[in-house]
Every structure is written in C-alpha cells, then in structure tokens.
C-alpha cells in the first residue's frame, strides 16, 4: 500500500513538474514572483488564481465520484448562483452575509435535488444531474431575464479580485474549503464510509452504513462547492452571464479527479491528488497561451497532453484492464 501511495502521488506530480518545466523553458520569467502592496504577483500566482473555481468544483466532484456517481450540473449551478447573487446585489437586499447565504442556499438546494434524484428515486447519476445541467442554465436566464446582469459592489467583488494574506482571495477560499473537506474526510470516518459505499454498496448496506444518505450528502457538498465557485466567478467579472459562467467547467472538474487517479466506478479518492490534477489542467492552459501557439490549436494540444498523462498512469490502468480481461476470459475459458 505504501508502494501504491508513492506510485499514486508520483505520476501526477511528475506530470505537473514537466509542464512547469516546459514553462520555464518557454519563458524564464514564469517563476518570477513579485511583492507589491503586500500582495504577491507572478505567473504562478496567476495559475493558482485561475485554478480556484475548478478546484472548488473538483473537491465536491471527488466525493461524488468516490460513491460511483457523477455530477454534471455543477457548471449550471455556478450560473444559477451567479444570477442570484447579481440580482440580489442589484436589489435592496445587498448586504454581503445575506448574498453569501442565499448563494449557499441555492447550491445546497440544487445539490439536494440531485441527491434525491439519485438516492431516493434511484435514477442513474449521469441522467439525474443532466437534468439540472440543462435546466439550470434556463433557470439562470429566467432569473437574469435573459440579460447579462452586472453590478457595482466592491465588497462582493473582493471575493473574486481581493486579496488575503498576500494571495488572491479565490486561492485562499479554495484552500480553506480544501482543508475543511480534507479534514472532515480524513479526521473522521466519513472518507472511509464514502469509499466503502462506492467500492461495494451492497456490502456497505450489510455493514449498517446508510448508503442512500451518504450518496445524498455528497451531492449536497458538491452543490455547495459549486455555489462557492459561482460566487468567485461572479465576483471576478462583477456580473452574471447565464450562458457562459462556468461553461464546461464540470468537465474540467471531472478530468481533474480522473487525473488524480480516481476511478469513475467509485472507490478510493484523494483530494490532494485531485488538486494536482486541477493544477495540471490550468498550468497547461497557461503554457499554451504563453508559448504563442495559435489559439486554434489549444484544445487539441490540451487533450493530447491529458491523454499522455492518463496513459502514463497506465500501470494501474493496465492492471485493471488485465483484471477485466482476465474475468472475461475466465468465462470464455470454460466455454
């Protein structure tokens, strides 16, 4: 197991290091950091800052995937939260705590919808969350009356562009959420229970675990994380765009979890590894922009690099494949 841990950490870290190294070659000032007005500036900080929304989504996504589910609706929840925040800020209810509470409530409600569809009504997670993925943007447009809602509120904007402890606020927020969830998972038995119900739901039921409640809760956490990401994104651009806020971000989040070595069929998960996955994705986007390659090649290069990383992780992958084909062959074997 210690071998496996080393191995699990090793490949994603190596990939990240290689991408950062490529940046060093492309532009030597990539690692340059500068402190101005008590705030750190530089490309590295930039990468962290841009990663924050995806990191927030990926934290919730890790838990959902660990139970063997998936949450496609997080991008849409980002849009709904954005619309709700922007409209509240333009109304007379524009005090910061109220807006934040409303956003969290929206995320929680969305998570509860997903959670009940999956755990009470037994709908396949991919279908259940697809409903909100499609409907969510429609809801956001309704709230915004089809417009892009902008607002002027410096206190709220500081969630996206302010700084704390010398770092951009989104980075600090993502770090705090990460630490909170990681603590909840690993310093209580929650992480073990989530992993067990993903590995073998039947056996978990026999163990007295309430698998339904566990599944319900992970979607709620995912919804809450999406709401926080929604606030960060909305505050960053000081406006809510129902069509584009958080668009395709759910896919980046899923990818980050997979890069972190989690299996979509559920089971083991690791939040630190997921975070490395997020950084790989973001560092690569930055690299492509900085290298001056024509933008039209961006997506292709990005997917190629991701493919390589996934293949690099193939020792475990290949073993699984071998196990799978072993199982199938053993059947054929009796033929």
């Amino acid at each position, binding site marked *: *197991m*210690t*071998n496996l841990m080393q191995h699990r950490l090793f490949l994603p870290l190596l990939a990240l290091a290689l991408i950062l190294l490529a940046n060093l070659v492309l532009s030597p000032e990539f690692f340059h950091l500068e402190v101005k007005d008590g705030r750190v500036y530089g490309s590295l900080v930039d990468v962290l800052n841009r990663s924050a929304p995806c990191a927030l989504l990926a934290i919730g996504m890790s838990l959902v995937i660990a139970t063997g589910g998936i949450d496609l609706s997080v991008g849409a929840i980002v849009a709904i939260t954005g619309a709700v925040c922007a409209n509240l800020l333009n109304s007379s209810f524009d005090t910061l705590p109220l807006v934040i509470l409303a956003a969290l409530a929206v995320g929680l409600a969305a998570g509860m919808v997903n959670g009940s569809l999956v755990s009470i009504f037994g709908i396949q997670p991919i279908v259940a969350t697809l409903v909100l993925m499609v409907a969510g943007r429609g809801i956001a447009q309704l709230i915004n009356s089809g417009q892009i809602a902008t607002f002027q509120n410096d206190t709220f904007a500081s969630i996206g562009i302010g700084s704390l402890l010398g770092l951009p606020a989104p980075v600090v927020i993502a770090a705090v959420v990460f630490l909170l969830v990681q603590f909840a998972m690993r*310093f*209580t*038995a*929650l992480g*073990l*229970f989530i*992993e*067990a119900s993903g*590995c*073998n739901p*039947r*056996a*978990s*039921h*026999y*163990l*007295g*675990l*309430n698998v339904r409640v566990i599944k319900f809760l992970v979607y709620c956490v995912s919804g809450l994380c999406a709401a926080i990401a929604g606030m960060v994104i909305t505050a960053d651009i000081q406006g809510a765009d129902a069509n584009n806020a958080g668009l395709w971000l759910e896919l980046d989040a899923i990818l980050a979890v997979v890069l972190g070595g989690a299996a979509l069929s559920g*089971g*083991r998960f690791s939040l630190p590894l997921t975070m490395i996955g997020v950084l790989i994705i973001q560092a690569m986007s930055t690299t492509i922009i900085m290298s001056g390659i024509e933008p039209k090649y961006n997506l292709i290069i990005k997917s190629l690099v991701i493919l390589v990383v996934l293949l690099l992780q193939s020792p475990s992958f290949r073993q699984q494949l071998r196990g799978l*084909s*072993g*199982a199938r*062959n*053993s*059947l*054929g*074997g*009796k*033929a």
Partner: protein
Amino acid sequence: MSAQNAVLQLTGVCKRFKGVIAVNNVDLDLRAGEIHALLGENGAGKSTLIKVITGVYTPDGGRIEIDGAAICPKSTLDAQKHGISTVYQEVNLLPNLSVAHNLYLGREPRRFGCIQWKKLQRDARALLQRFSLDIDVNELLSSYSIAVQQLIAIARAVDCAAKVVILDEPTASLDSREVGLLFQILRTLRDQGTAILIVTHFLDQVYALTDRLTVMRNGEKVGTFVTAELPREALVSHMLGKELQAMEASRASQHTDSVDPAALQLRELSSSNGIRNINFSAQRGDAIGLAGLLGSGRSEVCAALFGLDSVTEGEIRLGEAPYKPRSPAQAIAQGFALCPEDRKTDGIVHPLSVRENMIIAHQAQRGWWRPLRRSEQNKLVADATQRLKIVCSDPEKPIGELSGGNQQKVILARWLMTHPQILILDEPTRGIDIGAHAEILQLIRKLCAEGMTLIVASSEIEELVAFSNKILVMRDKRLSTTIAGQDISENAVLAAIAEPD
C-alpha cells in the same frame, strides 16, 4: 518421476506477488482418468497455482505441459483451447445475463450466425437437470443464491468436458445432496478419461472421491500421495505441518430450564422473502443451528433477523421488547451481527485494505464522528489476525489479494469486533481449512459460554451437530423439525431433512 500418461505436467512452477511467494517450485502430474485432490491450508497457494495453470496469472518460472507439449496460456480462453476447463473459487460468471446464456456464453448454438435462443434454453434446462436443479433458466444469474450460482458454474465447466477439469472448492456452499450429484458426475467424467483436479477442505470428500492427492504448504509442494494409502492423521499433519489437537465434541453450555425470558424469540414469523410461520426461542449462550437443503429458507431466516427483509407477519422479541428491524443498521444497533453467505458481493469491500475491512463495522457502529485512532485500529487488527490465524503479509493490502479462506476470516473478525449479543453466521466456515475450522468452532463455543447467542446456518451437518444445542431443520421456507439437547445427532438431522412431513 514423470508418470505414464500424464495429461498435465507441471515442473518447477513459481509465482510471486509483491512480498509473497505464493507458489514456489511446484511439480505436479495429472493423469488421464484420475481425480486428483489439491490440498493445503488457507493461503497455501492452491488457487494461485490453478490460476497459473489456466492463464489468469503468468508464471514467474517453470514449465506447463499438456500431453508432453509445453504450453503457456495467456488467458483462460487460451487454456480452454488447450483443453483445460475451470471453476474458480469465486463464481466468475456474468450476474446480469440469464442463467441459460451464462451456461453457453461464448459457445452459443448458432444457425446462420444467429443465436438459437430456443435451443439454448432447452439445452440449458437439460444440462441443469443433470444436477437436479429445477430453476427458471431465463432469470438473471444474480437472482439466485451463491450456492446455485456455483452449481451453474460447475455445470458449465463439466459440460465443456475437456481433457482437464479443474474445480476450486466447488462444494464450499453445497449441501450433501448436491455434493453427491456432483461426485457422480465427476466419476462418470473420470471413467471417460478426463483428468480432474479438485480443491477442497473436506477430508471426507477427499477420501470418498479422489485417487491421488497433492499437499501444498506455504506455497511449496509437500508431496503427492495415493489417497487410499495415506491415513487421515498423516494427511492432516502434512497439511498443517503439525498434529491437529483432537477436537472434543462438547456442545455449547446447555440451558435446559431457564427462568429468564428468552433472549430472542420468534413467533409465527413470516418475511417478505418467503419464510412462513417460524417459531423458536433462544437463551443467552445458546447456539442454534439452521439446517436444511439448498433453498429451504436457512439464509432467509438470517436475513429477516438482520433487517434485510421486512417482517410481514408475526413478531420477534428481544427479551421483553418487540423488535422489528427495518435495516441492518437498526439490527446492529440492537446487538446483531451477520456474516453473509456470499462473501464476494455482500462481505468484502474490495479494494479497501484488510485493516479497513476489519474495523469498518465497528467504526460504523461508533459513528463517523468518533473515528478509531490509527494506533487502536492497528492493535485491533493485529489481535484479530493473531486470534484467527489470518495469513496476511501486510494489513494495508487490498482484501481481494487474500486467499479465499483468509477473506472469510477477516469478515468473521470484522463482526467479532462489534461485540454482538446475537451473532448470525450464514455458512461461517465456507472455504476455511481444517486447522482453522477447529479453532473457529472453539472460538464459537467460548463466545457462547460468555453469553452470546449464536445462530448458524450451515450446509455442513457435522459442524452444526458439533456445537449447537438446538437445531432447526428447515424445509420449503418453513420450520419442519426442531431437535434439541441430547437428541441432536447427525443421523437425527439427516433423517429430519429427508423425511416427508
């Protein structure tokens, strides 16, 4: 050394896993027209050797020859092409296909490239008839109990009637009737010239069926013997590397006329799973055995008590209080524990580690907010590993990498950690070797003496007789006879199972 007409010949076969030498330099010759037993303790390397022969694992060294020609099977399909058909220890069919399709998967009868479903179903029915198995072949495999699934896997392998048939603990969850049928079929196959290799922990079966046997210990071959010439004691000491202490057949402490209210009482209990009008009561310290044929309702009684099926009629009482569990969680809160029959789907949580698998029931009982410290976990795991003699090089490795019998012990350890008042064991010794078997029976007696109530469903009558002070014989989902105290004997139970009401 190389014997005449050896169909399958192994020379110096080795297989290593991280940190474990599972099979070390093993030679074996399997002759046409013989039934050959492969014996050894849990974790001796029997299943691994079989998987090496059949292409699931690639050997780290050695030669495998079929009819004198070296082969190197890449997959079980490949092994099949060389004439080896196998039933693995863990049923390895597709649960989401029908029984009929599973039986003929990969060799479906076809006409003009299309599967002839009608013929397939007819053939399937006829094939299962040979095993006196009268089930709906169009149902999904997963809707049948593990014992039935095992019979289906055996039927499939036997029907492929190859040069070599390998069976890894085929009788682990079968009762005597099915075992008898299986043996008949195996003998017929042998007489037709098939070579059969069979793994089992039942020595009676070894002596009843096999011509020769090979003993393994710690991955190495101890020797090959002619069964009829090897006394039982010698065989046991070859397997264990020491003598087995004679096990006295004392029963759990007998409570005849207790004045206390019964610890557990079932009155006219019927459940959603089909059992009807079950009545019995148990005192603290009682060991109740549930006997009966396959599908007679043994497991269903266990399931109803553990809150897996809902109670439709009648009632259960715990002491004075009524008890109506709606989920395992509620049953556990009332002091119940259940080791399920099907350890692969209901027991082990793979790929979580051995440690996590052991402590998880206790942890679930404590609640998520009171995690066991790592040092406490390690201590609990080390104690249980020692107490149940679990062969496990590293408690952090995934449980699926343990041998079958050792997985079973981990599940038992898991529930003992919760200190249940009522422990329900459904086929507790499935796949457990004779050395450990004796120790587990001893452990069960000790727990009963400490006041735990035990309910054991088992297809092994000998085992039930050894420790029960009351045996309930089930038939057709009803309780047909209760045998208690001095009346308990193997013959009495057998007669009760056989006789019509």
